[in-house]
């Protein structure tokens, strides 16, 4: 756990970065606007489906250029980060970004729930779905954090989105041979090891599917993958050097 003074410094640096980034602000606001639009055009129940499924993607807004851009910019070669403190800063940055994204997600959830209570569409299982959305979101952040050791700027997030798009397009184009799998996904039951493994691979790429709350085994898989990604991130950060 980074020292409190470093967490405070990291929070100030990160907050100023987001405030000065119109793209991040627009991306952050686009999600609630989209959900509200669905709700008003269709129904609260339809908005809820989109809200929980897309909630983990909110974390990707915060997960851009977490490591490589800072390292290559030379900004970490400063009196603020001497004595290997730049590694602790990068660890603190992951924590701060995760906490900020979770805080923003919580605010959105409270507003969404208030809307549901007012319209009579709120269901108690939403709390569980929100928790699963947070797990998937943290997994995204950890995965993007690992990729950010190798990819500059927002290309870590772009790479993730491209892999997701590729997987989903592949799934659509192989609909006929995979009709069984789609049925299994709809029912939440996977008879046999083959379909389980195929779906497990899909979950590793699109963890959003666990927010349905009907896939506890795969939620456990995402939790395990989150642990692995965090361990990989910690190991990579511990080996970092500023060579430029």
């Amino acid at each position, binding site marked *: 756990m980074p020292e409190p*003074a470093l967490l*405070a*410094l990291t929070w*100030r*640096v990160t907050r*100023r*970065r987001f405030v*000065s*980034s119109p793209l991040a602000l627009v991306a952050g606001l686009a999600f609630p606007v989209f959900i509200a639009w669905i709700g008003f055009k269709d129904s609260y129940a339809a908005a809820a489906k989109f809200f929980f499924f897309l909630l983990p993607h909110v974390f990707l807004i915060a997960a851009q250029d977490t490591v490589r851009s800072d390292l290559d*910019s*030379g*900004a970490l*070669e*400063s*009196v*603020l980060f*001497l*004595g*290997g*403190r*730049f590694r602790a800063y990068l660890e603190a940055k992951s924590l701060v970004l995760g906490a900020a994204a979770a805080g923003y997600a919580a605010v959105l959830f409270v507003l969404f729930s208030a809307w549901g209570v007012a319209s009579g569409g709120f269901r108690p299982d939403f709390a569980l779905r929100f928790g699963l959305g947070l797990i998937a979101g943290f997994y995204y952040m950890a995965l993007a954090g690992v990729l950010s050791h190798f990819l500059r700027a927002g290309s870590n997030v772009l790479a993730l989105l491209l892999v997701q798009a590729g997987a989903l397009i592949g799934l659509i184009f192989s609909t006929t041979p995979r009709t069984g799998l789609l049925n299994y996904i709809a029912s939440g039951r996977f008879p046999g090891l083959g379909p389980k493994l195929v779906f497990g691979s899909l979950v590793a790429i699109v963890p959003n599917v666990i927010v349905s709350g009907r896939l506890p085994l795969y939620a456990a898989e995402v939790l395990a993958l989150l642990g692995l990604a965090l361990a990989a991130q910690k190991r990579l950060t511990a080996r970092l*050097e*500023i*060579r430029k």
Partner: protein
Amino acid sequence: MIEAHKLAKRFGRVEAVRDVSFKTRKGTITAMLGENGAGKTTTLKIVLGFLRPDAGAVSIAPGRVGYIPDRPAFFPWLDGWAILGLTGARRKDHAPGNGRDFGASVLAAARSLLFDPALLRRRPAQYSAGNAKKFAYLQNLVFAPDLLVADEPFSALDPPSIKCVRELFCGLRDSGKTLLLSSHMLAEMERIADAFVVLRHGQTIAHAGLREWRLMRSARTGPDLESVFLRLAGS
């Protein structure tokens, strides 16, 4: 203050540093000299903890450490005041809002470096190379280090600013601070340094105090530090 022992660092096939050892004493200015690619910057980065040595060890006496890179860079979304505020917050006895007049001390330090305080409202990424260097000095003055390490301390500076920085170094030394400077400006180094470390091909080839250095110089009948350095470097 700093003790480096048999440092070695390799980047792939390139052996940047293979046997660097030196000591600096408290309250002195030590100049690290060497040709391009001699391993000076790599050595400084090992000392400062930005790089891990493959072999050898560095020990630094307890205290605050400051650093002036050759080409300073800063977070592009922070303005000068914000960066100085973060730096002051690291030095708890000098943090903004603790009762001391942080702004006044910053302005005084800026003037001593011929740095226009109006620039502090702008982002250092927009500064000229010389002003970015002076801002890095200002940041370090706010931090008030016990040990200051500078890589090419005079690069990008105009003659009046070089004079200010020279006076700053001498003032810091006289107040008991320790300085380690890596530079190609031999005339400047000869004026202010108390000790010299000369690197060549990643190795320490000479390590001398000023008295020893002058003895070497007279023995070799060289007129100045430049001649001695060129002899040592085999140029």
